[in-house]
């Protein structure tokens, strides 16, 4: 028997017809966000970055967040950590996620503490290896912390102490998580100082402002001074959901239209992601973790 011979395996009657093959995406690939007003595709590199998504209800925030989560779900190197006070916006990804937090303040704080501990451990690991940040083929994958409607956790649910603790934990993760591959994507309607502490809001490098109810709200999302230069998402047509100003590479707001996935699309992508993830052993069933 030499190397050219083929080995015939005994037939297995209960073997599945197909094997799960991942989508081959990586979080190091830029996320396709939509198109800009020149018709060019708008890509958003999410690795080592954080994004804050703002806009009035129905402006397309959750749609954009779903696009980012969907990309991450198809990346075998990303763990998903989803916080959604409204449950249904990110709920379709529940089975693909490692942690899914509904309207449960304690669970949210516990989850952020876990992420914070992971972050500290990773920094200790990097220090021991004399490195400063992680790379594409590292021992551990990246973690996407996606939070829809931050205001629920930081201003509505629980008492003041819990809200402050939540904001402090999230601020720490946004501030320090960058170099160890912990990515935060957060959405809220109006990130004014009574909803999100400005010290947290100003840490987000990238901003997306969907339609806002006035020019000041737009400036709060994008940063002070953009309205004076003519960049106000108040001018966006309220019926044109998903359009908004994006501040990404280049630092100048760019008018983009975010890509849209129907619920059926999301279910297909989420089920596929769940299937590939469970078989590859990366994502443990979220239900087991939440029950624990």
């Amino acid at each position, binding site marked *: 028997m030499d190397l050219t011979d083929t080995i015939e395996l005994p037939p297995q009657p209960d073997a599945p017809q197909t094997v799960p093959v991942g989508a081959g995406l990586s979080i190091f690939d830029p996320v396709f966000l939509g198109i800009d007003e020149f018709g060019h595709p708008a890509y958003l590199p999410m690795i080592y970055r954080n994004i804050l998504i703002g806009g009035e209800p129905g402006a397309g925030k959750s749609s954009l967040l779903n696009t980012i989560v969907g990309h991450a779900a198809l990346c075998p190197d990303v763990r998903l950590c989803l916080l959604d006070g409204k449950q249904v916006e990110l709920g379709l990804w529940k089975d693909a996620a490692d942690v899914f937090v509904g309207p449960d303040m304690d669970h949210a704080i516990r989850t952020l503490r876990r992420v914070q501990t992971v972050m500290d451990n990773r920094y200790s690991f990097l220090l021991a290896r004399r490195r400063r940040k992680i790379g594409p083929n590292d021992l551990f994958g990246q973690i996407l912390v996606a939070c829809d409607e931050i205001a629920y956790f930081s201003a509505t649910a629980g008492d003041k102490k819990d809200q402050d603790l939540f904001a402090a934990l999230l601020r720490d993760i946004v501030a320090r998580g960058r170099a160890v591959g912990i990515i935060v994507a957060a959405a809220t309607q109006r990130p004014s100082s009574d909803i999100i502490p400005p010290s947290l809001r100003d840490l987000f490098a990238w901003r997306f402002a969907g339609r806002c109810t006035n020019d000041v709200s737009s400036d709060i999302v994008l940063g002070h001074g953009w309205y004076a230069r003519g960049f106000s998402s108040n001018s966006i047509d309220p019926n044109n959901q998903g*359009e908004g100003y994006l501040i990404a590479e280049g630092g100048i707001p760019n008018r983009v239209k975010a890509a849209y996935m129907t619920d059926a699309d999301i279910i297909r992508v989420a089920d596929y992601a769940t299937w590939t993830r469970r078989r590859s052993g990366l994502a443990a069933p979220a239900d087991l973790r939440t029950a624990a």
Partner: protein
Amino acid sequence: MSKSSQRSPFGWSNRGGQVTVIEAPVARSYRRRAVIAFWVTLGVVGLLAAMVASEYLHPILGGLLGVVLGAVLGAVVFALIVAWPVLRVFWHWLPEIVFGLAVVYGWTTLMESTPLWGSLLIVALVVGVPAAIAPVRRRVMAWIWCLIVRHRLRLCFAAFIATNRHGSLPLILLARPTPAGERVWVWLRPGLSLRDLEQDDQVQKLAVACWANEVRVMRAGRKYAALIRIDITRREPLAHTVVSPLPDYVPRDVPANAPTSPGMPPVGLDLPDVPDVPVSAPTDTPRQRKPRNPTTPTASPNGFDPSDYA
């Protein structure tokens, strides 16, 4: 050499019912510059020409020749600078002037070389075919808008954008059509900055003047602060739905209607199903203290909260 008593054909004097083409302060400023340019040209060209001519002629003759050459060139420069405010208008309207000339002379040539029906047929083809084909028509209209926008911007700069001490306006460079409208590059002269265009709702005024929906100004690059870009939006190119490509990564045989868990029974989904529980006041609420330095909340009329920018 013109003394101040002499009158220019471009009329900085309104003596004898002449029409003022150039306003008096502008004309004075240009005349002063022209005088300086004349003497500088006379000096430089005269010296150079005298040196070169002295190689071939007697030095005195060469020197005289140099002075004559310098005076002639200086006069040309003088005339150009004095007439520049008028020449500039010709330059600004050059595309329209060339187009008008082309139409007039083209029609005349066409009528001379072909019979009337042939001329009309050619004109109908030249005008009608681009007008009938939508992409060509849109492209031509976009170019026309570029021309219009340059004139409108120039008007704005002259009307309400702060100028520097010499009154020189921003230099309008290239204008390009974009799917949303036009994009114009502008070079700011010394004494101006991007802030001058940003302050006091200037962009809104620009949008009104350009007959546009909105106008945005920004730096054109990281290299020059003087080079700015003006985006004029008059159309909405983002109205269509953009379909996400993520489902394309999923094999076709993955169904979209995966079985859902039986989940929770439909209880408490309507208002009568939820009991009316009295609000329990928190017991450990600290007593409200009066702050020592009460700060009155300053509510601004438009919802501006200064602490948002703290």
